[in-house]
C-alpha cells in the first residue's frame, strides 16, 4: 500500500486501536482493562495529531490534546478518587462468556463492522476515511460487547468509554469540522458520565456491598396470579 508517512502511521494506529479493543475483551484484571483503555485513548489522540498534520488543521491538534486531557489523565484520576482501591485489584472470575468465546464474538463484530460501513466508504478517495470509519465502528461494537460480557462495575464503565473511543476514531475523520462548542460539550459529557457512574458504583458498593452491579437481580416482571 502506498501513501504518505502520516497515512501509513495512521493505519498503524488504527490496527493498534483494534488490538487494544480485543485486549480489553481478553483481560481479566480490572487494572489491566483500564490500562488498555488508556493505551487506546493515546492511539486515538495520535491519530488526531496525524490527521491534523496531513490536513493541516489546528482544530484536530486541539482535539488530540483534549482527548489526552480527558481520557488519559482526567478519567483515570476521577475513578481513583471516587472508588476504593479494592475495585481495581479485583480479578474478574465470573464473566458471562468465557474469554476465547468472547474473543470470537469480538472478531465477528469486527467483520460485521467492515460490512456495515463498507457501503459508506466505497466512493471515498481519502485513505484515512477508508481506514478510520470501519475501525471506529469495530471499536464501537467491540466496546458494546465488552460491556455486555462483563459484570464488574469498572470494566462495564470502561466498555462505554471504549465505545465512545470507537465513535471518536471515526468522528475525527468524518466530522472534524464540528463546531468547537459541540466538541467541548462531548468531552465534558464523557467526564460527567464517569463521575455519575462512579458515584453510583460507590453507592452500590456501600449499600449493597458488591462491586458487581450486574449481579443484582431483584427487579423483574413475575407473572401475576389471577385469583
Amino acid at each position, binding site marked *: 500500500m502506498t501513501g504518505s508517512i502520516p497515512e501509513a502511521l495512521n493505519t498503524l494506529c488504527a490496527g493498534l486501536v483494534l488490538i487494544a479493543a480485543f485486549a480489553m475483551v481478553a483481560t481479566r484484571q480490572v487494572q489491566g482493562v483500564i490500562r488498555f483503555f488508556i493505551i487506546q485513548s493515546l492511539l486515538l489522540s495520535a491519530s488526531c495529531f496525524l490527521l491534523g498534520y496531513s490536513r493541516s488543521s489546528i482544530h484536530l491538534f486541539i482535539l488530540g490534546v483534549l482527548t489526552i486531557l480527558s481520557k488519559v489523565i482526567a478519567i483515570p484520576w476521577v475513578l481513583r478518587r471516587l472508588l476504593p482501591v479494592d475495585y481495581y485489584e479485583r480479578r474478574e472470575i465470573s464473566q458471562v462468556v468465557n474469554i476465547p468465546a468472547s474473543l470470537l464474538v469480538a472478531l465477528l463484530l469486527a467483520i460485521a463492522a467492515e460490512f*456495515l*460501513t463498507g*457501503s*459508506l466508504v466505497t466512493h471515498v478517495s481519502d485513505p484515512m476515511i477508508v481506514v478510520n470509519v470501519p475501525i*471506529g*465502528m469495530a471499536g*464501537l461494537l467491540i*466496546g*458494546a460487547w465488552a*460491556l455486555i460480557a462483563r459484570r464488574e462495575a469498572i470494566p*462495564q464503565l470502561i466498555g*462505554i468509554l471504549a*465505545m*465512545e473511543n*470507537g*465513535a*471518536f476514531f*471515526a*468522528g475525527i475523520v*468524518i*466530522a472534524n*469540522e*464540528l*463546531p468547537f*462548542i*459541540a466538541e467541548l*460539550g*462531548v468531552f*465534558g*459529557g464523557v467526564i*460527567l*458520565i464517569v463521575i*455519575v*457512574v462512579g*458515584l*453510583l458504583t460507590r*453507592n*452500590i458498593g456501600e*449499600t*449493597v456491598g458488591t462491586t458487581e*452491579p*450486574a449481579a*443484582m*437481580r*431483584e*427487579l423483574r*416482571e*413475575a*407473572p*401475576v396470579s389471577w385469583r
Partner: protein
Amino acid sequence: MALILVVVIPLLAALLCWIPPFRRFAWGITVVSGWVVFALTVFVWHEVLLNERVVSLPRWIEIDGLGVLILGIVSLVNALAAVFAGGYMRRTEHEPERLWWYYCNSNLFAFSLLVVPAVADPNLSWVGVELVTLFAILLVGFERSANALEAAWKYAVLTMMGAPVSLFGFFTLFWAYHAVSGGAPETWQSIQAAAPNMDPNLLKISFLLIFVGFGAKSGLAPVHTWLPDAHSQAPSPVCAVLSGVKTSVPLYVILRLIGVVLGSPMARVGHWMVVLGLISVGIAAFLLLQVRDYKRMFAYSTVEHMGIILTATGLATGTADFGAVLQMLNHAITKSLCFYVAGVVLLVLGTREIASIRGLFRISPFAASALLFCSLAIAGAPPFPIFLSEFSILSAGLRVGQYAAVAILATLIVIAFVAILLHVNRMAFGEPDAPHLAKPLPLSCRVAVIAAAVPVLFLGVYIPAPINDILQLAARELGGH
C-alpha cells in the same frame, strides 16, 4: 432573550440550592424557578405563534413549533412536579438534610430537559440528551435502597450504551451534511433544507444509529426494560418528569430526524417506524396485563404511548403527524398526573403492590377518585385527550390505507385499556382487606394533583386556538412535506 432565560434559570436555581445558607429553602427556590420558567415559556410560545420561529442567539439558540411544544410540556410538568415534591419528599425522605441534594439535582435535570428543544445545533442536542440521561441516573437512585440502586444501574448501562452509538450517528449526519452544505453551519433547519441533496445511504445509516441510541432512552422496545424498574424505584415526582417528558425528549430528536429523512427522496423509513412502534405497543400491552406494581403499570403505559407516537409518525400523513404531536402533549400532561396520583396512593397506603390494595374508595376517597380519573384518562377513554389523539392517529391510518397497522394498533390499545382498568378496578372498589389507617395528605400534593387534572379534563373537549396553532406548526415540522 426569554428563551435564554428559560435555560439559564434552572441552572441558577440548582446553584442556589447547592449553596449552604440557601439549602433550607431548596424547595421554595425550585418551585419559584419552575413557575418562572413556565411563565417565560408561555411568552416564548406566544412569540413563536407570531413569527413561527424565535431566534435568541442565531445558529445556537433557536426554537420553532415542535421545539416550543416540547419546551411547553417540559416546563409545565416540571413546575407541577416541583410543587408536588414539597410534601411528598418531606414525607418519604428519612434524612431531611439530604433534601437539598434532591432539589439541586431536579433543577439540573430540568435544565438539561429544557436545553434539548432550545438548541439549534444537532450535536448540542446530543449533548443535551446525554445530560438528561446523567441527571436522571442520580434521581432514580436517590433513595439509595438496594432496589433503587439496581434500577439506577440498569438504567445507566442501558441508556449510556446508546450514547456512543448515537454519537456515531451524529458524526455521520454531519459528514452527510458537510458534503453538500458548502460550509454553512449545521442546524436542524439547515439540514432539513439540505436533506434532498444528501447521500441517502449516509442519511439512512446515521438515522439508524441515532434511532438505536435514542430509542433506548425513550423506552422503545426491546430496550424498554430499564423503564419499569426506574419508575417503580424513583421518587414519584421524578417519575412524573421521567415518564411524562423525559421519554419524549429523545423522541423529539428522533422525530426531528424523521422530518429530515423524509425530505430525502431515497431514504424511506416510514414502514420501519410503523413496525417498531407496533412492537413497542404490543410488548407494553401484554406486559400491562401481568404487572403487579401500579407504578410499573404506568411505566408500561409510557412504553405503549411512545410506540403509538412512533407508529403515527411512520404513517407519514399530515393528520397522523398532528395526532403524534397531540399524543405527545396529551401523554405528558396525563402521565405526569398518573404519577402524582401514584405518589398519593403510595403516601396513603405505603405499598406499591396492586394485589394488596382493595377498596381504596373506603380508605381515601380523594386518592381513589384521582386514581380512577387518571387511569381512565391514560387508558384513553372518551372524552379524555388521549382518546382524541389516538382516534385521530387511527383515522389517519385508515385514510392512507394502512388497514393492517390500524387494526393491530387498535387491538393493542384496547388490550392495554382493559388491562389498566382491570388493575385499577381491583384497587379502587370493593372492601378493604384490613382496616387501613389513611394518613392525611400534604397540601402541596393535593394542590399538584388538582392542578394537573385541570388540563387533562379540558383538553379532551376543547383545544384552545394558541395550542392548536402550535400543534399544527409542530406537525408540519415533522412531516417534511
